[in-house]
């Protein structure tokens, strides 16, 4: 069954069509990579799914539920999680406080007014171990390294336990080693969570991708396995016209 379906999704900013009748289906538990040259509309697509931007027309379905017109917080409750390009953690809060904010299965005031502790056990402990932050629980997020901040944000999404996780360049600014650790983390999450990852780093994409969707000028250009997409002449033309090397596109 499709975890997420985009149906002729379109958004116009003034005269510019940023996303143009985009159809997309992502299976439950799939890790989908979204590629495309700068300005292809990848980040805008994620913004549309999570509700940061309202579409001009088209529909977004989460499972069978139409979430096109829901406000952001209701989409999040329905199961959409978003990781932003620059690590967007709460810098004044400690690691565990950030994760506690992330644990939002019961986001109502009446519940949160009665919660006073964040015990490090169960899912919290598991997630801390998964991203390797178990010794930094009391560290303020602003004192973490850039890579750790990225992991913290991923960890917050894991605490949120959303059905679909949208990631915008999760490895931006990471060292080679951190990137490969992130790749193995994402491979581990695949299956339990449905993920859409926007990424420029082709080495990284090759490490994690199952199905790749390529966008150009707001529209779907090609879809398939990484080999098939790389062989697609349309992709080569749109993407590689000037450099001739996808890895540096």
């Amino acid at each position, binding site marked *: 069954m499709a975890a997420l379906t985009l149906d002729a999704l379109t958004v116009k900013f003034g005269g510019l069509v940023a996303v143009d009748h985009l159809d997309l289906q992502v299976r439950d538990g799939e890790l989908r990579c979204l590629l495309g040259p700068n300005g292809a509309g990848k980040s805008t697509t994620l913004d549309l799914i*999570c*509700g*940061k931007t309202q579409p001009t027309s088209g529909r977004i379905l989460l499972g069978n539920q139409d979430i096109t017109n829901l*406000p*952001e*917080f*209701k989409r*999040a*409750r329905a199961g959409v*999680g*978003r990781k*932003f390009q620059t690590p*967007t953690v*709460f*810098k*004044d*809060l*400690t690691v*565990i*406080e950030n994760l*506690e*904010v*992330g644990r*939002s299965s019961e*986001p*109502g*005031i009446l*519940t*949160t*007014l*009665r*919660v*006073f*502790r*964040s015990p490090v056990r169960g899912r919290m402990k598991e997630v801390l*171990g*998964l*991203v*390797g932050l*178990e*010794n930094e629980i*009391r560290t303020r997020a602003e004192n973490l390294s850039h890579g750790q901040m990225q992991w913290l944000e991923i960890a*917050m999404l894991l605490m*949120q336990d959303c059905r679909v996780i949208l990631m915008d360049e999760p490895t931006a600014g990471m060292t080679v080693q951190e990137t490969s*650790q992130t790749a*193995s*983390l994402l491979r*581990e999450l695949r299956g339990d969570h449905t993920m859409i990852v926007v990424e420029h780093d082709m080495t990284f994409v090759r490490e994690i991708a199952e199905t790749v969707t390529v966008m150009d000028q707001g529209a779907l250009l090609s879809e398939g396995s990484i080999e098939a997409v790389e062989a697609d002449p349309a992709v080569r033309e749109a993407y590689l016209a000037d450099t001739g090397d996808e890895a540096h596109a």
Partner: protein
Amino acid sequence: MNTGFKIDCIGYGLFAAFVLLVMPWMVDFSGYELNSYARYLALGMVAAALALSWGTAGILNLGQALTFGVGAYIMAMHLKLRASESLPGGMPDFMGWTNVEALPWFWQPFHSLLFTLGAGVLIPVGIACLLGVFMFRGRITGVFVAIITLSLMLAVQLWIISEQRFTGGENGITGLAPLNLFGWSVDTYELSFYYLVAGCLLAGLAVGLGLVRSKAGLVLRAIKADPERVRFFGYDVARYETLAFATSAGIAGVAGMLYALVLEFASPTYMGLSISLAIVIWAAVGGRESMVAAALGGIGVNMAEGRLSDLFFDQWTLMLGVIFIAVVLFLPRGIYGLVATARDYLEARYTERVAMALNREQDDAARPVADRGEVK
């Protein structure tokens, strides 16, 4: 998320001891000064209320004096009715002078003490909820919140001044009867009244502390840093902001009721620009991040004002001004900032030590796989 809780409780305990024991001890537990001290506590309470919305949730309410003033008027209306029982129609004197024929309907329920006490909290809360729904659902933030709250307060103040027939106008509501609280006739110069005010202040702070240190408070701190991000975790940001705003209004309402009791009149100046800005200054001096610190700021500044104006007739405002400028320049987080920095330093040293001890333990054991090695 509970490291701060214990330290907050210690701070709260010290503050309670200061308010309940040290302050009355300074005036030998009796006398005229106690009344002034009760006034300082009421003002400290409204500063704490501001700290709740400003310091915790990042909502700078420049109209905090509105809810404070509403509370004061509500208390004054009740006491005025009690004082006017022997007058024709049971109407307040100023209504008679302006030829009002019968007691207006919105004065009627204030005959009841219980209604008055409830209204003193709930009407400010209601005002804040209504305003909050419009502002926060519309995602109005920052300086615009300050402008809206300030304008609303000034509008209400103008209305009160212009509707002299019903509100006493510029003169406010004066000539009040003493409060009769379930058989206890309150004398505002007695120690028991001081303790009533102190009890209300401590109760208000306890409510605030519970809110700030619960997960709801954590979400509010997150909202202060980045409301957009919090929305994507599924929290209804507008509702959380309204919660902080309304709780703050309720506490300010109680402070206003106490203030009217202390001064024995209510005046439109209670919801004026100068007191509203003064509240911001008190909270800033004490430290807006902590309600207790802000309350201390309110008490301390007012106490200093009282002392300085006794000693120097004219120059004391100048001195206060210099103190404020110094605080803003050198202690942007207020006096609380100093304490917090020291606390963070101690905490960092403590965790360092714990980590070292843990490492030693791990070395002794067969060194289990600890970190990211598992993920690979």
